[in-house]
């Protein structure tokens, strides 16, 4: 047999499941297989066969611990979706454009100071709560501080963001099981903003509540829950 020997399409045809699992197909060929899968039992069981038999090849890949910011982002995202809720994959836009706008620590320090100066304007009634809201790269995108009165939140951009036309919405997730995100309103990538915290949430606000930002249609999420990707998050902590 020479190296140039090829197997014709007829021979290769029933290997499509193996080729799909192996990962050698083009994007179009992959979509075609995925379109057929729900309707063709034999194809589905062939795909299952190869997935189960070849998974052992990944033993050759060393595990790498993901960044610590990963889990809070997943938690914030699933806060918006009950299991089994269909959502369009198209909303999963790349997070990559949030990165690459590197900021120096000086910028972050200045933003933090600005937030502190602001909350310093009113007498402290309780220890100030602050959060650094960062993407999965760990790069801070916003610094947020609860005002001393506890009924509003100052949000200061720490990194220049994006030209993405979608709105940036800020969410509060209280600690505890099965908490859903509460919208605090839209924030601007280019300017500090003061948002009012609804009284029923303000009463429960404390350390370990999570703030998260998602990309939403103009005007904000139409559903009252995040509909776009959560691109950054952070926990409130007592200073």
């Amino acid at each position, binding site marked *: 047999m020479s*190296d140039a020997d090829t197997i014709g399409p007829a021979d290769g045809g029933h290997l499509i499941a193996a080729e799909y699992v*192996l990962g050698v197909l083009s994007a179009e060929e992959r979509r075609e297989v995925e379109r057929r899968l729900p309707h063709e039992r034999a194809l589905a069981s062939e795909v299952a066969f190869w997935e189960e038999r070849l998974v*052992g090849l990944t*033993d050759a890949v060393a595990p790498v611990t993901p960044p610590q910011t*990963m889990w809070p982002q997943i*938690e914030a995202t699933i806060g918006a979706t009950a299991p*089994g809720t269909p959502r369009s994959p198209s909303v999963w836009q790349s997070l990559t454009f949030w*990165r690459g706008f590197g900021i120096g620590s000086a910028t972050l320090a200045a933003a933090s100071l600005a937030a502190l100066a602001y909350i310093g304007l009113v007498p402290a009634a309780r220890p100030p709560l602050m959060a650094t809201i960062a993407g999965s790269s760990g790069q801070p995108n916003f610094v947020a501080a609860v005002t001393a009165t506890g009924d509003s939140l100052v949000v200061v951009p720490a990194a220049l963001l994006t030209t993405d036309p979608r709105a940036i919405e800020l969410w509060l997730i209280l600690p505890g099981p099965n908490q859903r995100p509460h919208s605090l309103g839209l924030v601007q990538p280019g300017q500090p903003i003061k948002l009012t915290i609804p009284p029923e949430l303000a009463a429960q606000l404390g350390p370990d509540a999570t703030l998260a930002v998602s990309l939403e249609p103009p005007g904000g999420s139409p559903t009252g829950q995040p509909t776009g990707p959560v691109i950054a998050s952070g926990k409130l902590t007592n200073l």
Partner: protein
Amino acid sequence: MNGDATRSQLAAALARVASGDRAALRMVYQDTSAKLFGVCLRILNSRSEAEDVLQEVYVTVWRKAADFDSSRASPITWMVAIARNRAIDRLRASAVSRRMEPLEAADAVSDPAPAAVERLASAQQHQRLARCLEELEARHSGAIRAAFLDGATYEELAVRMSVPLGTMKSWIRRGLLKLRACLEG
């Protein structure tokens, strides 16, 4: 923890995830994320892309846990398939910008205490796969390994190994046919 205990614990955790239990998803994440992140990094060769995909993977697990059927697949096979499919789709979407540089992840800190799911296949299945791959011509099994781990297309593999496209297709298809017969036998 042995492999069987890990698998049945994971399957139980996925069943809880299907009922909306976030703590269970966290357990699944803790046990599997380092493995899946490694798999995504290997395919995408980019930390930021792999992080995006990993986030999508666990959101998909959250949404689709009810579809997981423990009588048909092992939990880790199901999750690795989700991770690889997402990573390969992302790779195809960004094919033009793919860098063939030394692995960016190489300087990432490899997990000093690997998560519970270090070895994915059962020992028996693992040995059989290794034995069947050994029966293939080295270049055929090499191409199959490279394809699976890197998610490379036939075209990319042909370029990488400096053979005509038809030859690469032939190597992999012949290898797969022989592998299938051996794995079934």
